[in-house]
């Protein structure tokens, strides 16, 4: 089971990317033995789940974990849920959508420490709101960039090229090594980009194996 963690601030576009990525993975894994090729864990804050319903309607197998806050999810519930999925569904891929206030790096660490499974992090940044968010909550949004080798800079349809340069520079200040890929997840994400993400996860997995 290969694990991908989708991180990024509230409303940055995690679910929008997840829908396309999961669909792409399903199409790749036609040969895979288990009926469930891609399982999804949704971590939502608050009392009502919305993303899980959207993803279920799209035909995916979704487990929903509610937590009042990002860090509450980092306890037994997440670990138990992953274990359960591994045993019962045995999917080829597991995608975890973190809450928009979580640090994906912390989630990865918990999974590694508790289950010995490594995960690839994919952080999505909201290009339109980036500067505003950096001034209001720098620690959170910059912390979400840690430990990721790809940053999908989403909603580039809403910014011009000068703004793009600024945001890109700002992101590079927090993570010098990440590859920044501009996308617009409300439209179709080019297959080459999805492939790159998948390759990244494959490399990690192959290195472990």
């Amino acid at each position, binding site marked *: 089971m290969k694990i991908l963690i989708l991180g990024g*601030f*509230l*409303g940055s576009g995690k679910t929008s990317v997840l829908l396309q990525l999961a669909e792409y993975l399903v199409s790749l894994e036609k040969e895979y033995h288990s009926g469930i090729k891609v399982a999804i864990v949704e971590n939502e*804050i*608050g*009392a*009502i789940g*919305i993303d899980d*319903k*959207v993803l279920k309607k799209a035909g995916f197998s979704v487990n929903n974990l509610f937590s*009042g*806050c990002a*860090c*509450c999810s*980092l*306890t037994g519930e997440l670990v138990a849920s992953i274990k359960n999925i591994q045993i019962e569904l045995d999917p080829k891929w597991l995608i975890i959508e973190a809450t*928009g*206030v979580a*640090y994906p790096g912390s989630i990865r660490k918990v999974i590694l420490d508790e289950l010995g499974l490594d995960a690839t992090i994919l952080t999505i940044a909201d290009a339109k709101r980036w500067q505003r968010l950096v001034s*209001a*909550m720098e*620690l*959170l949004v910059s*912390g979400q960039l840690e430990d990721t080798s790809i940053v999908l800079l989403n909603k580039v349809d809403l910014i011009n090229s000068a703004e793009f340069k600024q945001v890109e520079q700002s992101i590079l200040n927090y993570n010098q090594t990440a590859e920044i890929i501009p996308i617009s997840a409300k439209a179709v994400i080019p297959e080459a980009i999805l492939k790159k993400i998948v390759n990244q996860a494959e490399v990690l997995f192959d290195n472990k194996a």
Partner: protein
Amino acid sequence: MITKHNHAESCNHHHHSGHHHGIESHLHDDVLVCSGKRDIIGDLETIKLNLVGEVKILANWIQETGGIIGHVKALVERDFPVTMISTTGDDVTIKEMTGSTVKVSVVAIVFNMNAQRLECRIASLFDALQKQTDL
């Protein structure tokens, strides 16, 4: 300011069970999550259209009152048709209700905002939605 914190050490949750029926809020550090659900009786398309307007008004209100929007989401689900099955011991009756009920959920994730005020505001969003639908 959101600060990274070690969860094992501190968890300052406040569960607020407000006086607004069906609306719940949850505060962690300065992230406030306020969620509510209500059944609105009426035409699906009209409700969707009105909800778009109401969400926009809610978003403006949050910003005008000094809040920072994380994400405001709403979900509209139609329960239609609705069937009621009941008995008093003899035969079982089946009743089909044709009027459409639309379940509307709203989740607002906001920073810098008082829980009770936001709960009130979301409750009035639902009231407005029902009122507009009744027109």
